Protein backbone atom coordinates (compact mmCIF):
# COMPACT_ATOMS: atom_id res chain seq x y z
CA UNK A 1 0.00 0.00 0.00
CA UNK A 2 1.33 3.39 -0.94
CA UNK A 3 1.15 6.39 1.28
CA UNK A 4 0.24 9.58 -0.46
CA UNK A 5 0.06 13.09 0.81
CA UNK A 6 -3.35 14.60 0.24
CA UNK A 7 -3.26 18.31 -0.36
CA UNK A 8 -6.73 19.48 0.44
CA UNK A 9 -7.16 22.74 -1.38
CA UNK A 10 -9.36 25.45 0.10
CA UNK A 11 -8.12 28.27 -2.00
CA UNK A 12 -6.60 28.48 -5.47
CA UNK A 13 -5.00 31.87 -5.16
CA UNK A 14 -1.42 31.36 -6.37
CA UNK A 15 0.23 33.91 -4.13
CA UNK A 16 -1.38 32.55 -0.98
CA UNK A 17 -0.83 28.92 -1.94
CA UNK A 18 2.81 29.40 -2.79
CA UNK A 19 3.49 31.36 0.36
CA UNK A 20 1.73 28.93 2.70
CA UNK A 21 3.05 25.81 1.02
CA UNK A 22 6.60 27.09 1.18
CA UNK A 23 6.19 27.83 4.85
CA UNK A 24 4.79 24.40 5.68
CA UNK A 25 7.43 22.57 3.68
CA UNK A 26 10.24 24.67 5.11
CA UNK A 27 9.20 23.64 8.60
CA UNK A 28 9.66 19.95 7.94
CA UNK A 29 11.37 19.43 4.62
CA UNK A 30 12.06 15.72 5.13
CA UNK A 31 8.39 14.92 5.47
CA UNK A 32 7.62 16.17 2.01
CA UNK A 33 10.71 15.15 0.13
CA UNK A 34 9.88 12.73 -2.66
CA UNK A 35 6.25 12.21 -1.68
CA UNK A 36 3.42 11.62 -4.06
CA UNK A 37 0.72 14.23 -3.72
CA UNK A 38 -2.95 14.13 -4.60
CA UNK A 39 -4.75 17.46 -4.70
CA UNK A 40 -8.26 17.12 -3.27
CA UNK A 41 -10.74 19.56 -4.72
CA UNK A 42 -13.79 18.70 -2.64
CA UNK A 43 -13.28 21.40 -0.06
CA UNK A 44 -12.57 24.43 -2.21
CA UNK A 45 -14.19 27.54 -0.74
CA UNK A 46 -15.17 28.48 -4.20
CA UNK A 47 -16.02 25.15 -5.84
CA UNK A 48 -15.97 26.74 -9.29
CA UNK A 49 -12.57 28.34 -9.16
CA UNK A 50 -10.00 27.25 -11.71
CA UNK A 51 -6.72 26.14 -10.14
CA UNK A 52 -3.70 26.33 -12.43
CA UNK A 53 -2.50 22.74 -12.29
CA UNK A 54 0.55 23.21 -14.47
CA UNK A 55 1.73 25.85 -12.05
CA UNK A 56 0.80 23.72 -9.04
CA UNK A 57 2.80 20.79 -10.46
CA UNK A 58 5.91 22.86 -10.82
CA UNK A 59 5.39 24.45 -7.41
CA UNK A 60 5.18 21.01 -5.84
CA UNK A 61 8.17 19.69 -7.73
CA UNK A 62 10.26 22.70 -6.76
CA UNK A 63 9.67 21.51 -3.21
CA UNK A 64 10.54 17.91 -3.97
CA UNK A 65 6.97 16.60 -4.17
CA UNK A 66 5.30 14.90 -7.10
CA UNK A 67 1.75 16.02 -7.76
CA UNK A 68 0.27 13.03 -9.53
CA UNK A 69 -3.49 13.36 -9.41
CA UNK A 70 -6.52 15.37 -8.43
CA UNK A 71 -9.46 13.99 -6.54
CA UNK A 72 -13.02 15.23 -6.96
CA UNK A 73 -13.66 18.57 -8.61
CA UNK A 74 -15.99 19.64 -11.37
CA UNK A 75 -15.75 18.70 -15.02
CA UNK A 76 -13.81 21.80 -15.94
CA UNK A 77 -11.27 21.36 -13.16
CA UNK A 78 -10.80 17.70 -14.06
CA UNK A 79 -10.31 18.60 -17.67
CA UNK A 80 -7.61 21.09 -16.88
CA UNK A 81 -5.97 18.59 -14.51
CA UNK A 82 -5.86 16.02 -17.31
CA UNK A 83 -4.31 18.59 -19.60
CA UNK A 84 -1.63 19.22 -17.03
CA UNK A 85 -0.77 15.51 -17.17
CA UNK A 86 -2.46 14.58 -13.88
CA UNK A 87 -4.74 11.64 -13.21
CA UNK A 88 -8.28 12.19 -12.04
CA UNK A 89 -9.49 10.12 -9.13
CA UNK A 90 -12.98 9.56 -7.75
CA UNK A 91 -14.21 11.75 -4.96
CA UNK A 92 -13.83 10.07 -1.65
CA UNK A 93 -16.39 7.47 -0.74
CA UNK A 94 -19.69 8.94 0.53
CA UNK A 95 -18.79 8.21 4.11
CA UNK A 96 -15.91 10.62 3.87
CA UNK A 97 -17.18 13.03 1.32
CA UNK A 98 -18.47 15.48 3.87
CA UNK A 99 -15.59 17.62 4.91
CA UNK A 100 -14.71 17.21 8.52
CA UNK A 101 -15.92 20.11 10.62
CA UNK A 102 -12.55 21.75 10.96
CA UNK A 103 -12.16 21.64 7.23
CA UNK A 104 -15.64 22.84 6.38
CA UNK A 105 -15.50 25.70 3.95
CA UNK A 106 -16.02 29.02 5.59
CA UNK A 107 -15.22 32.47 4.27
CA UNK A 108 -11.50 33.00 4.26
CA UNK A 109 -9.98 35.26 6.83
CA UNK A 110 -6.39 36.41 6.73
CA UNK A 111 -5.18 33.72 9.10
CA UNK A 112 -7.02 30.94 7.42
CA UNK A 113 -5.00 28.32 5.63
CA UNK A 114 -5.18 27.85 1.91
CA UNK A 115 -4.87 24.09 2.28
CA UNK A 116 -4.37 21.22 4.67
CA UNK A 117 -2.10 18.23 4.38
CA UNK A 118 -2.72 14.72 5.57
CA UNK A 119 -1.35 11.30 4.83
CA UNK A 120 -3.53 8.56 3.44
CA UNK A 121 -2.91 5.15 2.10
CA UNK A 122 -4.42 5.40 -1.25
CA UNK A 123 -5.00 1.92 -2.60
CA UNK A 124 -8.74 1.55 -2.33
CA UNK A 125 -9.70 4.97 -3.42
CA UNK A 126 -7.09 5.62 -6.06
CA UNK A 127 -9.32 4.23 -8.75
CA UNK A 128 -9.00 6.20 -11.91
CA UNK A 129 -12.38 7.61 -12.82
CA UNK A 130 -12.58 6.26 -16.29
CA UNK A 131 -10.49 3.17 -16.69
CA UNK A 132 -11.54 2.95 -20.29
CA UNK A 133 -9.56 6.10 -21.06
CA UNK A 134 -6.53 4.71 -22.83
CA UNK A 135 -3.43 6.58 -21.80
CA UNK A 136 -0.67 6.23 -24.36
CA UNK A 137 2.79 5.42 -23.00
CA UNK A 138 5.26 8.23 -22.65
CA UNK A 139 8.54 7.79 -24.46
CA UNK A 140 11.58 9.62 -23.13
CA UNK A 141 14.22 9.55 -25.82
CA UNK A 142 16.89 11.58 -24.03
CA UNK A 143 18.90 10.43 -21.02
CA UNK A 144 17.31 11.07 -17.63
CA UNK A 145 20.12 12.74 -15.71
CA UNK A 146 20.95 12.92 -12.03
CA UNK A 147 18.50 15.24 -10.28
CA UNK A 148 15.80 14.86 -12.93
CA UNK A 149 12.45 13.24 -12.36
CA UNK A 150 10.03 11.90 -14.89
CA UNK A 151 6.48 10.92 -14.05
CA UNK A 152 3.80 9.52 -16.30
CA UNK A 153 0.28 8.35 -15.72
CA UNK A 154 0.50 5.17 -17.77
CA UNK A 155 3.50 3.26 -19.06
CA UNK A 156 6.88 4.90 -19.29
CA UNK A 157 9.44 3.96 -21.92
CA UNK A 158 13.02 5.10 -21.41
CA UNK A 159 15.09 4.88 -24.55
CA UNK A 160 18.34 5.97 -22.92
CA UNK A 161 20.17 5.81 -19.62
CA UNK A 162 18.60 6.75 -16.31
CA UNK A 163 21.47 8.12 -14.24
CA UNK A 164 22.25 7.50 -10.64
CA UNK A 165 20.37 10.16 -8.72
CA UNK A 166 17.56 10.35 -11.28
CA UNK A 167 14.05 9.12 -10.62
CA UNK A 168 11.44 7.70 -12.98
CA UNK A 169 7.87 7.12 -11.84
CA UNK A 170 4.93 5.63 -13.69
CA UNK A 171 1.43 4.66 -12.66
CA UNK A 172 1.88 1.76 -15.08
CA UNK A 173 4.92 -0.25 -16.20
CA UNK A 174 8.43 1.01 -16.78
CA UNK A 175 10.54 -0.17 -19.70
CA UNK A 176 14.18 0.92 -19.63
CA UNK A 177 16.27 0.24 -22.72
CA UNK A 178 19.39 2.08 -21.56
CA UNK A 179 21.20 1.39 -18.29
CA UNK A 180 18.85 1.88 -15.33
CA UNK A 181 21.08 3.38 -12.65
CA UNK A 182 18.68 5.58 -10.72
CA UNK A 183 15.40 4.93 -8.94
CA UNK A 184 12.42 3.42 -10.71
CA UNK A 185 8.90 3.36 -9.24
CA UNK A 186 6.22 1.53 -11.21
CA UNK A 187 2.57 1.28 -10.25
CA UNK A 188 3.27 4.45 -8.32
CA UNK A 189 -0.40 5.33 -7.82
CA UNK A 190 -1.41 1.87 -6.72
CA UNK A 191 -1.10 -1.02 -9.15
CA UNK A 192 0.28 -4.28 -7.83
CA UNK A 193 0.56 -5.83 -11.28
CA UNK A 194 2.83 -3.14 -12.70
CA UNK A 195 6.34 -4.27 -13.64
CA UNK A 196 9.72 -2.85 -14.44
CA UNK A 197 11.67 -4.23 -17.37
CA UNK A 198 15.20 -3.21 -18.09
CA UNK A 199 18.07 -4.31 -20.26
CA UNK A 200 20.92 -3.18 -18.03
CA UNK A 201 20.11 -3.32 -14.34
CA UNK A 202 22.20 -1.06 -12.12
CA UNK A 203 19.36 0.56 -10.17
CA UNK A 204 19.71 2.23 -6.77
CA UNK A 205 16.14 1.40 -5.86
CA UNK A 206 13.10 -0.18 -7.45
CA UNK A 207 9.53 0.04 -6.26
CA UNK A 208 6.21 -1.38 -7.33
CA UNK A 209 2.95 -0.26 -5.81
CA UNK A 210 4.81 1.33 -2.93
CA UNK A 211 6.85 -1.77 -2.05
CA UNK A 212 10.38 -0.74 -2.53
CA UNK A 213 13.73 -2.41 -2.47
CA UNK A 214 17.11 -0.79 -2.18
CA UNK A 215 19.49 -2.75 -4.34
CA UNK A 216 22.08 -4.38 -2.16
CA UNK A 217 25.21 -6.31 -3.03
CA UNK A 218 23.08 -9.50 -2.95
CA UNK A 219 21.61 -8.48 -6.24
CA UNK A 220 25.02 -8.00 -7.79
CA UNK A 221 24.69 -11.22 -9.78
CA UNK A 222 21.99 -9.37 -11.72
CA UNK A 223 24.22 -6.37 -12.25
CA UNK A 224 24.06 -5.04 -15.82
CA UNK A 225 21.78 -7.94 -16.81
CA UNK A 226 18.34 -7.84 -18.36
CA UNK A 227 15.83 -8.18 -15.56
CA UNK A 228 12.20 -7.76 -14.70
CA UNK A 229 10.90 -6.57 -11.38
CA UNK A 230 7.49 -7.63 -10.16
CA UNK A 231 5.50 -7.93 -6.99
CA UNK A 232 4.79 -11.42 -5.62
CA UNK A 233 2.43 -10.88 -2.77
CA UNK A 234 4.27 -8.39 -0.61
CA UNK A 235 7.67 -9.38 -1.90
CA UNK A 236 9.49 -7.61 -4.71
CA UNK A 237 11.26 -10.00 -6.99
CA UNK A 238 14.04 -9.12 -9.38
CA UNK A 239 14.51 -11.89 -11.92
CA UNK A 240 16.76 -12.24 -14.95
CA UNK A 241 14.84 -12.06 -18.20
Amino acid sequence: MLAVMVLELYDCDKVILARDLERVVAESPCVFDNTLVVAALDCLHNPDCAPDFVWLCSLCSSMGMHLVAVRGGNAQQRHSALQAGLSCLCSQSPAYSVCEPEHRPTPRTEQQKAFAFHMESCRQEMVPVSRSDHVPPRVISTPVRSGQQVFHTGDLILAQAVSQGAEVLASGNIYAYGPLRGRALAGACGNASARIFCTCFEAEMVSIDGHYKMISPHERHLWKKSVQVQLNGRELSVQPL
Partner: protein
Amino acid sequence: MARIIVVTSGKGGVGKTTTSASLASGLAVQGHKCAVVDFDVGLRNLDLVMGCERRVIYDLVNVINGEATLNQALIVDRRTDKLSILPASQTRNKDALTVEGVGRILDGLAETFEFVICDSPAGIEHGALMALYYADEAIVVTNPEVSSVRDSDRILGLLHSRSRRAEQGLDPVREHLLLARYDAARVTKGDMLGIDDVQSVLGIPLLGVVPEDKAVLEASNEGVPVIHFPGSAAGKAYQNAVFRILGKEAPESSLEKPRTGWLKWLLEGSG
Protein backbone atom coordinates in the same frame (compact mmCIF):
# COMPACT_ATOMS: atom_id res chain seq x y z
CA MET B 1 26.34 32.91 -36.72
CA ALA B 2 28.39 33.12 -33.55
CA ARG B 3 28.83 29.94 -31.58
CA ILE B 4 28.03 30.50 -27.92
CA ILE B 5 29.85 27.86 -25.89
CA VAL B 6 29.50 27.47 -22.14
CA VAL B 7 32.30 25.80 -20.18
CA THR B 8 30.60 24.24 -17.21
CA SER B 9 30.91 21.40 -14.69
CA GLY B 10 28.74 21.61 -11.60
CA LYS B 11 31.68 20.73 -9.38
CA GLY B 12 34.17 23.43 -8.47
CA GLY B 13 37.87 23.49 -9.20
CA VAL B 14 37.83 20.97 -12.03
CA GLY B 15 39.45 23.25 -14.59
CA LYS B 16 36.69 25.37 -16.20
CA THR B 17 38.61 28.63 -16.10
CA THR B 18 41.84 26.98 -17.26
CA THR B 19 39.88 25.43 -20.13
CA SER B 20 38.03 28.63 -21.07
CA ALA B 21 41.25 30.61 -21.21
CA SER B 22 43.13 28.06 -23.29
CA LEU B 23 40.37 27.23 -25.74
CA ALA B 24 39.54 30.91 -26.32
CA SER B 25 43.22 31.70 -26.87
CA GLY B 26 43.65 28.72 -29.18
CA LEU B 27 40.64 29.65 -31.30
CA ALA B 28 41.91 33.22 -31.61
CA VAL B 29 45.40 32.06 -32.61
CA GLN B 30 43.71 30.01 -35.36
CA GLY B 31 42.31 33.29 -36.68
CA HIS B 32 38.80 33.26 -35.23
CA LYS B 33 37.44 36.31 -33.44
CA CYS B 34 36.69 35.13 -29.96
CA ALA B 35 35.32 36.63 -26.74
CA VAL B 36 35.64 34.96 -23.38
CA VAL B 37 33.22 36.00 -20.64
CA ASP B 38 33.77 35.43 -16.91
CA PHE B 39 30.41 34.55 -15.33
CA ASP B 40 31.95 33.86 -11.93
CA VAL B 41 30.67 37.14 -10.53
CA GLY B 42 32.05 37.74 -7.06
CA LEU B 43 35.22 35.70 -7.52
CA ARG B 44 36.81 36.80 -10.79
CA ASN B 45 39.56 34.43 -11.82
CA LEU B 46 39.65 34.50 -15.56
CA ASP B 47 41.49 37.84 -15.77
CA LEU B 48 44.26 36.39 -13.59
CA VAL B 49 44.64 33.28 -15.72
CA MET B 50 44.67 35.49 -18.81
CA GLY B 51 47.14 37.90 -17.19
CA CYS B 52 45.02 41.02 -17.68
CA GLU B 53 43.92 41.72 -14.11
CA ARG B 54 45.58 45.14 -14.07
CA ARG B 55 43.66 46.26 -17.11
CA VAL B 56 40.18 45.61 -15.71
CA ILE B 57 38.17 48.83 -15.52
CA TYR B 58 34.60 47.83 -16.21
CA ASP B 59 33.02 44.43 -15.91
CA LEU B 60 30.09 42.28 -16.98
CA VAL B 61 27.75 43.69 -14.34
CA ASN B 62 28.62 47.28 -15.27
CA VAL B 63 27.57 46.53 -18.84
CA ILE B 64 24.36 44.79 -17.76
CA ASN B 65 23.48 47.79 -15.60
CA GLY B 66 24.25 50.23 -18.40
CA GLU B 67 27.16 51.80 -16.50
CA ALA B 68 29.56 51.03 -19.34
CA THR B 69 29.34 49.93 -22.95
CA LEU B 70 30.46 46.54 -24.12
CA ASN B 71 33.42 48.08 -25.92
CA GLN B 72 34.55 49.94 -22.82
CA ALA B 73 34.51 46.75 -20.79
CA LEU B 74 36.14 44.37 -23.29
CA ILE B 75 39.88 43.91 -22.84
CA VAL B 76 41.86 42.98 -25.93
CA ASP B 77 44.35 40.19 -25.25
CA ARG B 78 48.04 41.14 -25.33
CA ARG B 79 49.02 38.09 -27.36
CA THR B 80 46.37 38.04 -30.04
CA ASP B 81 44.07 40.88 -30.98
CA LYS B 82 41.44 38.42 -32.16
CA LEU B 83 40.70 37.66 -28.51
CA SER B 84 38.79 39.86 -26.04
CA ILE B 85 38.02 39.25 -22.38
CA LEU B 86 34.93 40.41 -20.54
CA PRO B 87 35.81 40.20 -16.85
CA ALA B 88 33.46 39.52 -13.95
CA SER B 89 32.82 41.94 -11.16
CA GLN B 90 34.45 41.26 -7.83
CA THR B 91 32.19 43.45 -5.77
CA ARG B 92 28.76 42.21 -6.78
CA ASN B 93 27.10 38.88 -6.41
CA LYS B 94 25.60 36.57 -8.97
CA ASP B 95 22.08 37.95 -8.50
CA ALA B 96 23.20 40.92 -10.58
CA LEU B 97 22.94 38.62 -13.62
CA THR B 98 19.51 38.61 -15.26
CA VAL B 99 18.26 36.56 -18.20
CA GLU B 100 17.46 39.73 -20.04
CA GLY B 101 20.76 41.47 -19.23
CA VAL B 102 22.90 38.48 -20.16
CA GLY B 103 20.88 38.12 -23.35
CA ARG B 104 21.72 41.70 -24.36
CA ILE B 105 25.45 41.15 -23.71
CA LEU B 106 25.59 37.92 -25.69
CA ASP B 107 23.61 39.45 -28.58
CA GLY B 108 26.09 42.31 -28.61
CA LEU B 109 29.08 39.97 -28.62
CA ALA B 110 27.55 37.73 -31.29
CA GLU B 111 27.56 40.71 -33.69
CA THR B 112 31.36 40.92 -33.77
CA PHE B 113 32.70 37.61 -32.54
CA GLU B 114 32.66 34.15 -34.10
CA PHE B 115 32.99 32.39 -30.76
CA VAL B 116 31.72 33.45 -27.36
CA ILE B 117 33.13 31.29 -24.58
CA CYS B 118 31.26 31.55 -21.26
CA ASP B 119 33.30 30.53 -18.20
CA SER B 120 30.67 29.27 -15.74
CA PRO B 121 30.91 29.42 -11.97
CA ALA B 122 30.69 26.13 -10.08
CA GLY B 123 27.36 24.91 -8.74
CA ILE B 124 23.94 24.48 -10.22
CA GLU B 125 22.47 27.73 -8.98
CA HIS B 126 21.67 31.06 -10.52
CA GLY B 127 25.18 31.96 -11.73
CA ALA B 128 25.69 28.62 -13.46
CA LEU B 129 22.21 28.76 -14.96
CA MET B 130 22.84 32.25 -16.34
CA ALA B 131 26.10 31.08 -17.92
CA LEU B 132 24.46 28.14 -19.68
CA TYR B 133 21.10 29.69 -20.55
CA TYR B 134 21.98 31.02 -24.03
CA ALA B 135 24.50 28.35 -24.96
CA ASP B 136 24.49 26.65 -28.35
CA GLU B 137 27.12 24.23 -27.17
CA ALA B 138 28.46 23.08 -23.84
CA ILE B 139 31.88 21.84 -22.90
CA VAL B 140 31.39 19.82 -19.75
CA VAL B 141 34.66 19.72 -17.84
CA THR B 142 34.92 16.59 -15.74
CA ASN B 143 37.63 15.13 -13.54
CA PRO B 144 37.88 11.35 -13.49
CA GLU B 145 36.29 10.94 -10.08
CA VAL B 146 32.82 9.88 -9.03
CA SER B 147 31.64 13.18 -7.56
CA SER B 148 32.72 15.19 -10.57
CA VAL B 149 31.02 12.77 -12.96
CA ARG B 150 27.82 12.93 -10.93
CA ASP B 151 27.83 16.73 -11.01
CA SER B 152 28.49 16.76 -14.74
CA ASP B 153 25.50 14.50 -15.19
CA ARG B 154 23.44 16.96 -13.19
CA ILE B 155 24.60 19.86 -15.37
CA LEU B 156 23.72 17.89 -18.50
CA GLY B 157 20.21 17.53 -17.08
CA LEU B 158 20.01 21.30 -16.60
CA LEU B 159 21.22 21.90 -20.15
CA HIS B 160 18.33 19.71 -21.23
CA SER B 161 15.70 21.40 -19.15
CA ARG B 162 16.73 24.92 -18.26
CA SER B 163 18.60 26.30 -21.27
CA ARG B 164 16.97 28.65 -23.74
CA ARG B 165 17.15 25.95 -26.38
CA ALA B 166 15.26 23.56 -24.12
CA GLU B 167 12.69 26.13 -23.09
CA GLN B 168 11.99 27.18 -26.65
CA GLY B 169 11.98 23.65 -28.02
CA LEU B 170 14.91 24.35 -30.38
CA ASP B 171 17.63 21.85 -31.28
CA PRO B 172 19.25 20.75 -28.03
CA VAL B 173 22.53 22.22 -26.81
CA ARG B 174 25.45 20.31 -28.35
CA GLU B 175 27.39 18.63 -25.59
CA HIS B 176 31.10 17.82 -25.43
CA LEU B 177 33.03 16.09 -22.71
CA LEU B 178 36.41 17.44 -21.70
CA LEU B 179 38.13 15.16 -19.25
CA ALA B 180 40.61 17.23 -17.24
CA ARG B 181 43.34 16.43 -14.73
CA TYR B 182 43.56 12.92 -16.08
CA ASP B 183 46.28 10.87 -14.48
CA ALA B 184 46.86 7.66 -16.40
CA ALA B 185 49.03 6.16 -13.67
CA ARG B 186 46.30 6.60 -11.06
CA VAL B 187 43.70 5.15 -13.43
CA THR B 188 45.85 2.06 -13.86
CA LYS B 189 46.17 1.76 -10.11
CA GLY B 190 42.40 1.99 -9.87
CA ASP B 191 42.36 5.27 -7.88
CA MET B 192 40.63 7.12 -10.68
CA LEU B 193 37.97 6.42 -13.26
CA GLY B 194 39.06 5.61 -16.78
CA ILE B 195 37.91 7.44 -19.89
CA ASP B 196 35.45 4.73 -20.81
CA ASP B 197 34.04 4.64 -17.26
CA VAL B 198 33.26 8.35 -17.47
CA GLN B 199 31.87 8.08 -20.95
CA SER B 200 29.62 5.18 -20.10
CA VAL B 201 27.91 7.32 -17.48
CA LEU B 202 27.76 10.59 -19.35
CA GLY B 203 27.32 9.25 -22.85
CA ILE B 204 28.40 12.39 -24.71
CA PRO B 205 31.16 12.80 -27.31
CA LEU B 206 34.70 13.30 -26.08
CA LEU B 207 36.32 16.59 -27.06
CA GLY B 208 39.61 15.86 -25.38
CA VAL B 209 41.56 14.56 -22.43
CA VAL B 210 43.80 17.01 -20.57
CA PRO B 211 46.37 15.30 -18.39
CA GLU B 212 47.32 16.40 -14.91
CA ASP B 213 50.24 18.70 -15.61
CA LYS B 214 52.34 20.99 -13.41
CA ALA B 215 52.62 23.37 -16.34
CA VAL B 216 49.00 24.43 -15.74
CA LEU B 217 49.74 26.00 -12.38
CA GLU B 218 53.00 27.54 -13.61
CA ALA B 219 51.22 29.03 -16.59
CA SER B 220 48.41 30.45 -14.52
CA ASN B 221 50.87 31.99 -12.07
CA GLU B 222 52.44 33.75 -15.03
CA GLY B 223 49.07 34.79 -16.36
CA VAL B 224 49.57 32.95 -19.63
CA PRO B 225 47.04 30.33 -20.77
CA VAL B 226 48.74 26.95 -20.87
CA ILE B 227 47.92 26.47 -24.56
CA HIS B 228 50.70 28.99 -25.24
CA PHE B 229 53.15 26.37 -23.97
CA PRO B 230 53.04 23.95 -26.88
CA GLY B 231 55.71 21.78 -25.28
CA SER B 232 53.50 20.97 -22.30
CA ALA B 233 51.20 17.95 -22.28
CA ALA B 234 48.20 20.05 -21.18
CA GLY B 235 48.95 22.67 -23.85
CA LYS B 236 49.00 19.98 -26.54
CA ALA B 237 45.73 18.50 -25.32
CA TYR B 238 44.03 21.89 -25.44
CA GLN B 239 45.42 22.50 -28.91
CA ASN B 240 43.86 19.23 -30.10
CA ALA B 241 40.55 20.22 -28.54
CA VAL B 242 40.68 23.52 -30.44
CA PHE B 243 41.15 21.64 -33.72
CA ARG B 244 38.17 19.44 -32.92
CA ILE B 245 35.98 22.45 -32.11
CA LEU B 246 36.89 23.75 -35.56
CA GLY B 247 35.91 20.41 -37.06
CA LYS B 248 39.47 19.52 -38.01
CA GLU B 249 41.19 16.24 -37.54
CA ALA B 250 43.32 16.15 -34.44
CA PRO B 251 45.80 13.46 -33.61
CA GLU B 252 44.48 11.18 -30.91
CA SER B 253 46.84 11.35 -28.00
CA SER B 254 47.76 8.06 -26.43
CA LEU B 255 45.55 9.01 -23.50
CA GLU B 256 42.41 9.07 -25.53
CA LYS B 257 42.52 5.48 -26.59
CA PRO B 258 39.93 3.90 -24.38
CA ARG B 259 41.55 1.56 -21.96
CA THR B 260 39.70 -1.04 -20.06
CA GLY B 261 42.33 -1.58 -17.44
CA TRP B 262 45.77 -3.01 -17.21
CA LEU B 263 44.71 -6.66 -17.23
CA LYS B 264 42.99 -6.53 -20.56
CA TRP B 265 45.84 -4.45 -21.81
CA LEU B 266 48.34 -7.10 -20.87
CA LEU B 267 46.20 -9.85 -22.34
CA GLU B 268 45.96 -8.11 -25.65
CA GLY B 269 49.65 -7.38 -25.56
CA SER B 270 49.32 -4.00 -27.20
CA GLY B 271 50.04 -0.43 -26.20
